[in-house]
Structures are given as C-alpha cells and as structure tokens.
C-alpha cells in the first residue's frame, strides 16, 4: 500500500514540477525511491516504540 501511495504521489509531483518527459521520469524515480526508503527507515526507527 505504501509503495502504491509513493508511486502515485511521486508521479503527480514529478509531472507538476517538470515539463519534459525525461526529467519527469528522473524526478519521479528519485522521489519514489526517497518515499519508500524514508518509509522503511521510519518504520525501523519506530520499531522499539510501544503501541
């Protein structure tokens, strides 16, 4: 679910921010990777916290 969310949001942001397809793809890919990586890092950081 997180990956799907990251994909859709990064796609919209990339298309909003860039005008040519090549930069849109590059920006979108970077943003998607950053979303997913941040999700995993925050998930592991919160792992010891009690619910």
């Amino acid at each position, binding site marked *: *679910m997180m990956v799907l*969310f990251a994909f*859709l*949001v990064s*796609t*919209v942001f990339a*298309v*909003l921010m860039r005008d040519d*397809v090549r930069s849109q793809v590059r920006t979108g890919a970077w943003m998607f990777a950053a979303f997913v990586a941040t999700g995993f890092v925050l998930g592991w950081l919160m792992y010891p916290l009690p619910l």
Partner: protein
Amino acid sequence: MRYDRFDMSTKSTAAEGTRASVEPGTLAILCVLAWAVPGAAHLWLGRTQKGLVFLVALTAMFAIGLMLHGQIFPFELSDPLVALAAVADFGLGGPWLAARAMGAGAGQVTASTWEYGNTFLIVAGLLNSLVILDAFDIAMGRK
C-alpha cells in the same frame, strides 16, 4: 497549439511584470473545471500529457481511498482536524460530489485500512489543489 483560447503572449514571464490577457470569467471557469475533473484544465490548455497523468493518478487515488473504506469527512467545525480533512477532501471536486451523491465515503472506522483510505482521499484532494494552481499559472502565462 497551446493557449489558442487565450489571447496571451507565451513568451512573457512574471519576472518581466507582464500579465496574460485572460478574461477573469475564463479563468474562473478554468479553475472550476480543474476542480471538478482532475487534469481537465491542463487538457484544455493543450498540456495533454500532464492532464492525462493527473486524471488517471488522482482519480485512481480517490477510488483506492474509497475501496480502502476511507471516509469523506464532514465540515465539522467543532472538530478542527475533521474540518481540515474535509477541506482537503473537497479539493477533488467531481469525484467528491459523485461519491457524496452515491452515498459512498461513509468510511468504516473498524476496518484496518480506514486510516490508509483516509490518507489516499486527503492527499488526492490536496494534490488536486496544487494541480488547480498549476493550471492557473499556465493560463496566466507564468509557466
């Protein structure tokens, strides 16, 4: 050809202090169109690729949010966070109206995906607000 419907100079920039000669009524229609159908204003302005991406991605986000039992929040001023979520949901006009008309978006608080659904719905509305501002800037000749 882009901007055919708007008598404006595509070479002017905001930094030069020039403004596009767009009728205020046309701008209002453009913004309402962008609110009602995600990406429609971009399609009208000739930005076909952008318009199609917004149409597919934002509509999909809204539909996924509903499928995950997300809730379309009411304008409950007594609860500021609910009111803010309602404003965010409202950003995606057409699907919001359609869902309200069909009785969808009631949400199921007990569902494990309720929060995920809310996130999809809220972010879809907020992203469409950015899309409306982008269409406005394009129409004004700033982009």
